[in-house]
């Protein structure tokens, strides 16, 4: 069967991603800018599932490699006329957000097609949505879909005073289903009872800093929420410890690759001309997964599950390292 669509397919094919034009850049808060990306010929863009993100190529890093960051799409997902991303400037980051903040209308941007890693569960009876800071972006996408399809939901948004991106959008979409918090204590005073009083069939979704997600999943677990009801997406992966140097031995080619402290295994492999597919380069997307034959692994990614990490037969070379002097890879 061949699927046909009325939408003109004039965008660049999916494996190469899309080249879009910046239509408008809008400051949302002192630190957050919203970038509206459109096809240069005005065509509709591929639809996406709520909570999806795109991987944006944000210029190049100091060693000349492409810098790619994942950003959640904030706009409507069905045959969209634009992709909207909202990016907080990370002063101490790797430079991706600074690159986004330097964009002007008319600039061209290389992006991936949307990827879904934080989708709503369609059988849920109620959606309990929790946003921390700029983690509001995928939550806004969930809210748009929930309103459109008449799903039961509520939003808890914790943010710094005067720094609430997309507050207008949420107020308009949610009405009294929006709960705002500016202080940590007030937020947990409110969330604690909320976790104890949700109807059967509720699913919990959270996006925010790791500390918020860790505490929320911990509290949910203690309130009896099974893992299948709890969904979260991390952002703002902090800079990792540079780590100890080690040697990666490639068993198929017999090559030894030295990985210095402060250099990722992925970067070390690339500098030896060994191509490894990669996207986010921060342990989130799972693209660069490599098979491990031997050696202890210091897993530092957010992608692999506990059982996979325990098995010790693969790692994410963009962030993870050897836990010892030597690691053998099936390469």
């Amino acid at each position, binding site marked *: 069967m061949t699927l046909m669509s009325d939408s003109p397919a004039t965008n660049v094919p999916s494996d190469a991603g899309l080249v879009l034009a910046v239509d408008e850049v809008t400051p949302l808060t002192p630190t957050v800018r919203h970038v509206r990306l459109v096809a240069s010929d005005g065509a509709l863009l591929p639809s996406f599932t709520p909570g999806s993100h795109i991987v944006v190529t944000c210029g190049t890093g100091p060693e000349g490699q492409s810098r790619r960051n994942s950003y959640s799409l904030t706009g409507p997902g069905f045959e969209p006329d634009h992709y909207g991303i909202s990016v907080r400037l990370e002063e101490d980051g790797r430079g991706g957000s600074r690159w986004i903040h330097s964009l002007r209308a008319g600039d061209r941007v290389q992006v991936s097609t949307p990827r879904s890693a934080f989708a709503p569960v369609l*059988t849920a*009876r109620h959606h309990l949505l929790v946003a921390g800071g700029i983690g509001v972006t995928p939550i806004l996408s969930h809210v748009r879909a929930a309103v459109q399809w008449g799903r039961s939901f509520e939003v808890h948004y914790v943010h710094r005073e005067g720094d609430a991106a997309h507050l207008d959008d949420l107020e308009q979409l949610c009405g009294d289903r929006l709960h705002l918090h500016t202080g940590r204590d007030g937020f947990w005073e409110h969330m604690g009872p909320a*976790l*104890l*009083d*949700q*109807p*059967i*069939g*509720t699913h919990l979704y959270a996006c925010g800093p790791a500390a918020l997600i860790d505490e929320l999943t911990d509290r949910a*677990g*203690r*309130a*009896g*929420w*099974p*893992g*299948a*009801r709890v969904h979260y997406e991390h952002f703002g992966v902090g800079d990792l410890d540079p780590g100890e140097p080690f040697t990666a031995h490639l068993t198929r080619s017999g090559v030894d690759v030295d990985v210095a402290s402060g250099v990722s295994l992925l970067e070390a492999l690339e500098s030896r001309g060994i191509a490894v597919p990669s996207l986010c380069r921060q342990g989130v997307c799972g693209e660069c997964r490599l098979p491990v034959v031997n050696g202890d692994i210091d897993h530092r990614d957010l992608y692999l599950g506990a059982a996979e990490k325990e098995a010790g037969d693969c790692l994410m070379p963009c962030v993870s390292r050897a836990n010892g002097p030597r690691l053998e890879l099936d390469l």
Partner: protein
Amino acid sequence: MSVCMDTTSVPRWDEERSIAGGGRTFTILSFGDEAAEQARNLLPSFDGRRVDWMRLPAEWGDTAARVLRRQLDASRVGCRLVLVGSEAAVLAARAVAVAGGLVDEEIMPVPIDTADRAVYCAHCHTTHLAGVEVGRCTTCPNCRAELVVYHHVSRHHAAYLGYMIDAEER
């Protein structure tokens, strides 16, 4: 009839008899006297948690479904459901619980007796109970079709698939 145990949907109850930790409240449904005995033995394992124990007739029916739905409507996330009874009753209760919003990790099935099986007739879409082994035949009491009890269990219909033994020869 060869059965691939890796792929068949026939329940492996020993593997399914587990439940996510951390439950705050427990509802036990026991179906019949023998199941009630078994449920009583389970009670000490829920010591310290709130437990609602409901004793129901051995055979699944409208009353049991009504009781379970009412209980689910009044429950909050954090509850667990324990089902003790014949395989047919456990499967039927599980189907209603999932339709009502529970997930597998919140349901502990404790089947006590698997002599009777619920068989879904693929021809007239009714379900009947029959003391029959998988791979053997039973007659559909509704449409009189002679059904093979196939090694497929629908969690939605809460029954084994039964299809006419000579369907392809007619």
